[in-house]
């Protein structure tokens, strides 16, 4: 179970900045439809990049879903995040094929370079490091994905190089 995902203490002041009016069209679209909770949460995450507490409260007020149910679903699925993330999510693939091709060294090298642990965000908010189960590009293992771009046949060094270049672009 992914219990490490539940970390209420990290719910910082982020909620003040949430513009809840963005949620209206989404709620209108799915209101009253059966099986709508997951699409609503997916839509919410698309809007804010994570699930803000205030948004979850609003969803519970406006739909038939109980707060506990929403929280249950949000913590069950790997897709949902309860904390804000960096601008670029680095998804390092740890599927079987990548594991066999030593994906561990990719994560280790990135961790060393960015000085963060798996699942954490850098202080400047540019990167979040995540390990994922499989990106489905097994023949290019080891693989990582940043935004929509997939990088294959990596080494620790080349992965760090890619990250350095992205950071350079962000700083300009």
């Amino acid at each position, binding site marked *: 179970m992914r219990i490490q995902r539940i970390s209420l203490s990290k719910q910082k002041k982020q909620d003040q900045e949430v513009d809840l009016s963005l949620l209206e069209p989404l709620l209108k679209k799915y209101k009253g439809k059966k099986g709508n909770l997951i*699409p609503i949460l997916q839509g919410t995450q698309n809007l804010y990049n994570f699930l803000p507490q205030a948004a979850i409260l609003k969803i519970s007020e406006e739909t038939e879903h109980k707060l506990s149910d929403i929280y249950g679903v949000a913590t069950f699925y790997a897709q949902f995040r309860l904390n804000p993330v960096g601008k670029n999510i680095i998804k390092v693939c740890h599927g079987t094929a990548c*594991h*066999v*091709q030593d994906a561990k060294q990719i994560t280790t090298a990135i961790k060393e*370079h960015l000085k963060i642990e798996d699942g954490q965000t850098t202080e400047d908010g540019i990167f979040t490091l995540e390990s994922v189960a*499989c990106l489905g590009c097994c023949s290019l293992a080891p693989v990582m994905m940043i935004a929509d771009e997939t990088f294959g046949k990596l080494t620790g*060094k080349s992965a760090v190089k890619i990250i350095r270049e992205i950071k350079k672009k962000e700083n300009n």
Partner: protein
Amino acid sequence: MEKLKLIVGMGSCGIAAGAGKVFEKLKQLKTEELFDINIDQTSCIGMCYREPLVEIIDNNHSYLYGGIDENKVEELIEHHQKFHLPIKEWVVKTEEFTTQDNEFTDSQVKIALRNCGYINPERIEEYEAQKGYQSIKKIAENKISAQEVIQSILDSGLRGRGGGGFSTGMKWRFARNSQNTEKYIICNADEGDPGAFMDRSLLEGDPHSVIEGMIIGAYAIGATEGVIYCRAEYPLAIKRLNIALEQARQKGYLGKNILGIQNFNLNIYVKEGAGAFVCGEETALIASVEGERGMPRKRPPFPAASGLWKKPTNINNVETYANIPWIILNGAKEYSKYGTEKSKGTKVFALTGKINRGGLVEVPMGITIKDIIFKLGGGIQNGKKFKAVQLGGPSGGCIPAYLDDTIVDYDSVNATGAIMGSGGMVVMDETTCMVDMARFFLDFTQKESCGKCTFCRIGTKRMLEILTRITEGEGKEGDIEKLEELSYQIKESSLCGLGQTAPNPVLTTIKYFRNEYEAHIRDKKCPAKSCTKLLTYEVIAENCTGCTICAINCPTNAIDGGKKTIHFIRQDACIKCGACFTKCNFNAIKIS
């Protein structure tokens, strides 16, 4: 003379390998009118090891080129325009002559993948031109009854390709026999098995074949609504499915009174998964479609009696549906010609790991593992020794090299302790540690356990702790026995397939590689030299030439030494990634 036609293989992994850039380059060349060419795209051709792939049709001769980047493609066009002849050494596949890649294609029989890599998946006309939607038309025109359709599928011997291996025809018959006006048909495209990408390739490459399979299934069982439950990690597959569904609606393959069949109404939509491996289990999948936590429930009642919204529901896997139209069109007899007595037809495998030719292959059941790895796959990378092959992902097991005569069918694979699974086939060489492999899979199942059954929730965690301890050199006598005991308890006491099969990777590695476990526990050694905590990296002074390649490649700058001086690894900064060992050209790094 006809224009040159270039077709780029644009599956997800093709794009990752650079096919997108090639396609952009071609578009640019075309708009700048530098060359008079036609361009098009297709999806995964299966030869992932040679991506990016570009097919050129020159005067009705077709050549498939491998390893074409945006620079090479221009040279390729120039050559073809000038000579109308291929650049032979780049060709991977053609009818004109034999290439070194023929071994990869020759042993394959393409039924489920019949159109993948041949058609543009975003155009329904191209699917129709390949006898697409002919099967459902055949049913409509010849007034073939639902019972007859089910009988055909039964006769074909088709079994569920998601891993369970249950007879598809039987499943359909149960759903047919459930009396209810409202029934559902679901396509399980929640391909969570790490190391498998068959379903993704199929959905990206030929979405209509899956949709047609579902339409036929809906007709057979009497369903009026269809759901394709696809994992959100496959954005391209979802996009192409939605395009395909819209086209099918417009052409009248979906909707009301489909193809004039009275009262045959069907709508299909895509539901995005949210990332939970357990949702591959059918009752958990149904819970997830209903918007709840994807937790499995007790069976019976089976979904065929009470499934989605408590109505009779039929669930099949992507590959199963892709086979259906072919069977209806060519007959059950034709299909059952392939395969063994109890496993008919073909199976798609995602061949990956330490293999020379990795990719997507479709082989007739009954082929040996040896043939897949050494004939199709071209053997092991860098001339290393073949150690084992992992089948069935986290639910499966490792088959050791000495059992490579095992034939691929449900019963033979099960007899080894592995399972056929959905088709992930990860090849391992002598540098893969089997204890670490078991730990890897347990780490996965432990995270993905939904938490409903105690033994699965806590048992997998305890097993993971033991395995982690062993790989870190802190294994104790009795650990192996404890792992075995826990394995049987978890298998006995779990509700769904995830828990029942979670111990398989551990049990098979203990069965075939017990000596590796013992080496870790008793001698604190990793025979494969893979468990980093049991290793130290050192420079062998007499072999070191001071070329600096290790220092350049060290991600933590833990290697001291300038040009032409003997290097030194600082153990406190070394993260034991092994980069220096792989990069050194002079065998000057020692692992001990």
